[in-house]
């Protein structure tokens, strides 16, 4: 019963978030919110820009890429210089070059894949100055890209699509900072650590054991990493750690933080294009797919773990291996699904120890391109790419001109949307094939048999989708996995963001065709079903052969252990 009450509360909270955060974000990006003008204006002066200086999509994309590159260099440099920088009470040395490259790519692309154990590899300076900074900046970049695509639909005959520097500044200060700060206070009040005092050593007189407990500024990192669908926590086990996710309430709060912006952006979209119905149609796509994934994953995790049963424990309900008592099996499954249907990738339980079908939930959530609701920004622009494909296919089937929100969808738009939809699966599958065919790649997995294959596939799917969730059994901190992972993440990010910006640019140039009798409706259940179909078919056709070698074989191999 508790689980259904949890879902109900989450749905109500997200309903309000959709409506009010959604319309607030529309106001922010339309330049109607000014309460932090005293911070905003000096920044524009320093940057020598202003909201009036609009950019073409090419200039916008150029600014975004160069800014991301500079961020990559900053992040990399801080990790490499860690040993000589302050705020390092544990006297940790520099992070190695391959690991630094992987980590910098990971945080700049909003992935937060972690090939290191945070509490034992990163100084406070690195956690704050290098990783937390990108947890603010990378979602802001994603949201800016989504807003450009939305402006493509809302503007008519416009050569420009906004100003990158203004959009990102507004997103950082008006959206991310206030919510993250307030949530951080709540998380610490519940029990998360937030200190710069270093580790503490305590002797327990009851059992005679002396323990050294790592601590750090984890609580406020937790709030922004979830709000920005980053997912890379302070500790090695991420949000399973009681110091960053101390109670069932913080677990739910983290789920809400993660889903809030991606869900609300569908309202922002509707509001900015002047048709809330279109935003609601996208929300319906999100809710239907998300709900199905939660259902089958939670159901599977509520079943017994085959290895535990084989060891003689029959009285079990639910798979307790790798899960925390304070969360329980179904809520852990809800958490992991929420983090893989977005681009977050945080875990509150060990995904590697999920039952085969339970592990299929997070894996396939990522394979569908993370559109339900997806990452901050990246979710909306990828979903719009799928919607464009759905409009095109719908138009072909009934022989009408494909239009979406009055904008004609022609060859150029469909090519760009196709590119955006296919970059990720191609990258993931080619790199997975490469990893399993090389000895250095096969040396990675901890588990044997199909589960080992799943570990590799999961890792490359997660990085290609900028998710960062992991079946943590894979030994990813090798030069091979660090480098192919970084390539995977960079292509997965910029290979989709650039087509999305281009789409925004060319759509903004077009005029709106008045709606006629022959117009294909794009806000009714038919369109919702068509979009879901497109998402499932593209994801299913590209990845089905791969998942049948992993989780499906594992599920079907009764009584066999590997």
């Amino acid at each position, binding site marked *: 019963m508790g689980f259904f009450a949890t879902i109900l509360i989450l749905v109500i909270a997200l309903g309000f978030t959709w409506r009010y955060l959604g319309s607030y974000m529309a106001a922010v990006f339309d330049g109607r919110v000014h309460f932090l003008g005293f911070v905003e204006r000096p920044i524009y002066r320093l940057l020598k820009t202003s909201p009036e200086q609009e950019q073409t999509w090419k200039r916008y994309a150029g600014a975004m890429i160069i800014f991301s590159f500079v961020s990559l260099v900053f992040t990399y440099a801080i990790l490499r210089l860690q040993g000589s920088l302050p705020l390092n009470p544990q006297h940790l040395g520099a992070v190695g070059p391959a690991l630094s490259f992987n980590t910098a790519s990971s945080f700049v692309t909003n992935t937060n894949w972690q090939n290191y154990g945070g509490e034992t590899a990163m100084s406070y300076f690195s956690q704050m100055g290098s990783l937390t900074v990108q947890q603010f900046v990378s979602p802001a970049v994603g949201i800016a890209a989504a807003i450009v695509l939305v402006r493509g639909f809302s503007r008519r005959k416009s050569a420009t699509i906004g100003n990158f520097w203004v959009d990102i500044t507004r997103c950082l200060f008006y959206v991310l900072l206030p919510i993250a700060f307030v949530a951080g206070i709540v998380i610490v009040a519940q029990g998360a650590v937030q200190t710069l005092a270093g580790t503490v050593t305590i002797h327990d007189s009851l059992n005679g054991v002396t323990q050294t407990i790592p601590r750090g500024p984890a609580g406020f990192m937790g709030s922004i990493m979830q709000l920005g669908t980053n997912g890379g926590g302070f500790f090695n086990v991420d949000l399973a750690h009681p110091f960053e996710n101390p109670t069932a309430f913080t677990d739910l709060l983290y789920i809400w933080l993660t889903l809030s912006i991606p869900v609300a952006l569908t309202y922002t979209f509707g509001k900015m294009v002047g048709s809330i119905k279109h935003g609601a149609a996208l929300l319906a796509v999100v809710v239907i797919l998300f709900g199905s994934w939660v259902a089958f994953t939670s159901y599977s995790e509520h079943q017994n773990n085959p290895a535990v049963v084989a060891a003689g424990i029959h009285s079990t309900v639910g798979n307790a*291996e790798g899960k925390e008592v304070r969360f329980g099996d179904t809520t852990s499954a809800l958490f992991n699904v929420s983090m893989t249907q977005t681009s977050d990738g945080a875990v509150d339980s060990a995904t590697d120890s999920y039952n085969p079908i339970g592990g299929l939930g997070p894996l396939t959530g990522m394979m569908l391109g993370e559109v339900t609701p997806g990452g901050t920004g990246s979710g909306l622009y990828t979903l719009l790419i799928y919607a464009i494909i759905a409009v095109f296919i719908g138009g072909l089937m009934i022989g009408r001109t494909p239009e979406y929100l009055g904008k004609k969808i022609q060859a150029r738009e469909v090519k760009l949307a196709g590119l955006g939809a296919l970059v990720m699966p191609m990258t993931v599958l080619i790199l997975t094939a490469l990893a399993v065919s090389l000895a250095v790649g096969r040396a990675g997995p901890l588990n044997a048999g199909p589960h080992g294959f799943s570990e590799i596939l999961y890792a490359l799917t997660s990085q290609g989708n900028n998710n960062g969730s992991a079946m943590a059994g894979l030994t990813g901190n090798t030069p091979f996995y660090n480098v192919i992972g970084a390539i995977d993440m960079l292509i997965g990010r910029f290979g989709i963001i650039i087509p999305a910006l281009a789409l925004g640019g060319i759509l903004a140039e077009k005029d709106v065709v008045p709606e006629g009798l022959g117009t294909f409706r794009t806000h009714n259940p038919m369109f919702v079903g068509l979009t879901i179909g497109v998402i499932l078919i593209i994801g299913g056709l590209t990845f089905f052969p791969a998942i049948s070698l992993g989780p499906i074989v594992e599920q079907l191999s009764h009584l066999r*252990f*590997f």
Partner: protein
Amino acid sequence: MLVHLRRSLVLAVICLVFFGFVYAFAGTGVAQLLFKNQADGSLTANGSTLIGQNWAATKCPGNPLGSCVFHGRPDDTGPYAANPKTGAAGGDNPLVANGVSGESGATNLGPRSKVLKADTKALVAYWHKLGVNPTPDLVTTSGSGVDPDISPLDATVQIPMVAKATGIAPAKLRTLIASESHGAQLGFLGSSYIDVLQLNEALAKLH
């Protein structure tokens, strides 16, 4: 191009200052001011109520190791695991994972792993030797490796062991467990749990 580069550098420095340091320092300041105990790690004289400990190595004069206290959940390096990974302090140090001291970690073993099956069998045998009929939580490891909690049932099944080693009547232990149980948060979030450190601190007062 150069304009972009200059603006990028300026904005990157602004972000470093604002979101790296102002945010974290302001957050730490507020947290320390309002919720000092939590922000410092919920510490008691014997450890943190949020970090599981190694209870299996507790010396119990005249009785097997660890039989006079309640245990938390095992971790992947326990003395009862088929392949104990560390030798120090009985092997079950929740704060050692992946061979690194201070790191958190789970076993990451899949549901059809031979190793998981063997480890779980060893754990079942370990509990049987102590006279306990274990629940699933007591033979599986947690996601963090430092899970500080067990369910009320996990504590109840340990009553025969603790009663025998300490001489405290089972009825008294049952009352203790009931008084240390926390219900689900707000009545529906998560499940009811007992903090093992608090339980053992309360148990020590009964002696």
